[in-house]
């Protein structure tokens, strides 16, 4: 696929369709891949990669890139296209300045996920069938791909591209996803257990803002948490209240717009399962206001921008039973 992509990018550069390409650039190790803009065939040959470690979602970069001169070529994985659609819908990107090539994806992992599985000292990674063969300083290790994938790929919601100008490879289908399983499990717990669970997770937050800055739905010019006049601008999670506040408000702010791309959880240096907050909102919206997938198209209005006179009352939260 990488070869095909480079060839197609060169063609599009050559025939003047685009003047630059946003893609993944190889690093020092097998897994440290950086998003980069390429503007010539030589640059593409020198550094462009597409492999199992190209997890970064480029949609948000297009907010800035599409405002520059000329058209940009972007390669989008199926889940990235949902974010792309959502940003198009919100007029955050200039669609006409972008040429989208959809590329297939069967799950992307990263160095950190491998390390959590106990594989350290990674010097090289080869993909062999359904496994990764990892060269380490301390010998060769083999791990099944399915074991090395992060949660967002294990519960992939769709392998279908919802926005593209052309596709490389076959398009997939919307998947049967079990992505709400953990949310359901939490809902079934007692309030004390849930509180303990979230304190355990959120207390690790270091307020690096990576989740916010990577999020394709967080595109405010100035975030309320950076605005000194808001009265809540705080740089550090000084206590448990601020951890809660930041994550509740952040999740709320993207409710109905979050496509569940999972970037927040991918980038969290403390591995906080932030997607569980977003998925709770998605699940609630599905249950209360009807099935809704943000980014599925560019027309439907977001659930929090519309209403129905027969909507459920907030008291439904108390009536659902349990504690």
């Amino acid at each position, binding site marked *: 696929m990488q070869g095909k992509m480079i060839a197609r990018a060169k063609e599009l550069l050559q025939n003047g369709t685009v003047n630059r390409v946003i893609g993944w650039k190889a690093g020092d190790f097998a897994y440290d891949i950086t998003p980069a803009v390429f503007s010539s065939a030589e640059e593409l040959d020198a550094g462009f990669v597409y492999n199992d470690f190209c997890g970064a979602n480029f949609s948000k970069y297009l907010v800035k890139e599409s405002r520059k001169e000329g058209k940009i070529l972007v390669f989008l994985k199926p889940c990235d296209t949902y974010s792309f659609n959502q940003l198009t819908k919100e007029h955050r990107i200039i669609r006409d300045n972008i040429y989208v090539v959809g590329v297939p994806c069967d799950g992307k992992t990263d160095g950190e996920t491998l390390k959590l599985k106990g594989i350290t000292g990674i010097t090289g990674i080869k993909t062999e069938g359904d496994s990764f063969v990892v060269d380490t300083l301390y010998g060769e290790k083999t791990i099944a791909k399915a074991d090395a994938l992060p949660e967002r790929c294990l519960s992939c919601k769709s392998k279908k591209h919802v926005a593209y100008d052309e596709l490389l490879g076959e398009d997939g289908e919307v998947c049967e996803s079990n992505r709400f399983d953990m949310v359901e499990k939490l809902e079934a717990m007692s309030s004390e257990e849930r509180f303990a669970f979230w304190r355990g997770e959120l207390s690790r937050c270091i307020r690096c803002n990576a989740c916010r800055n990577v999020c394709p739905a967080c595109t405010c010019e100035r975030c309320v948490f950076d605005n000194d006049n808001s009265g809540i601008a705080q740089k550090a999670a000084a206590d448990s*209240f601020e951890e*809660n506040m930041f994550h509740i408000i952040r999740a709320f702010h993207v409710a109905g717009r979050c496509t569940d791309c999972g970037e927040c959880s991918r980038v969290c240096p403390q591995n906080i399962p932030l997607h569980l907050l977003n998925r*709770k909102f998605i699940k609630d919206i599905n249950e209360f206001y009807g099935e809704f997938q943000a980014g599925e198209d560019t027309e439907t209005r977001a659930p929090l921008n519309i209403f*129905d006179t027969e909507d459920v009352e907030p008291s439904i939260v108390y009536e659902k039973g349990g504690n």
Partner: protein
Amino acid sequence: MQVNEKEFKPTIVAFCCNWCSYAGADLAGTNRLNYPADVKIIRVPCSCRVNPMFILRAFQRGADGVIMCGCHPGDCHYTTGNYYARRRMTLLFSMLDYLGIERERTRVEWVSAAEGAKFAATMNEFVETVTKLGENKRLEDLRCKEK
């Protein structure tokens, strides 16, 4: 959990829309209906003005319970404000519950300008519920509690 049930007096913040609920509170007053003085009313132009941040900030500054009151659905002074507010608060309260914060500490009630009695009854009932729950511990900001 409660140290001193008898002495605990909760702080309640009530966001009331200017057109219905605030007038309802007024009516409760002029009709001399009793409701606890622990309820601090904050008047907002419309229930739709209530940002989720307001609710959290109220808890941060020491509220033990937060209630939002607006016009009955369909009767909003601005026609549709409370419909949006309804969706927002439903999701927010559900999220608070999901995080393990007692869901009984938050509430929405629709109170019209003519419902002075409902206002008083709602507040009495809410204060009673929150008193039973005790002090807000799960969504507190210790820095604001030190005296």
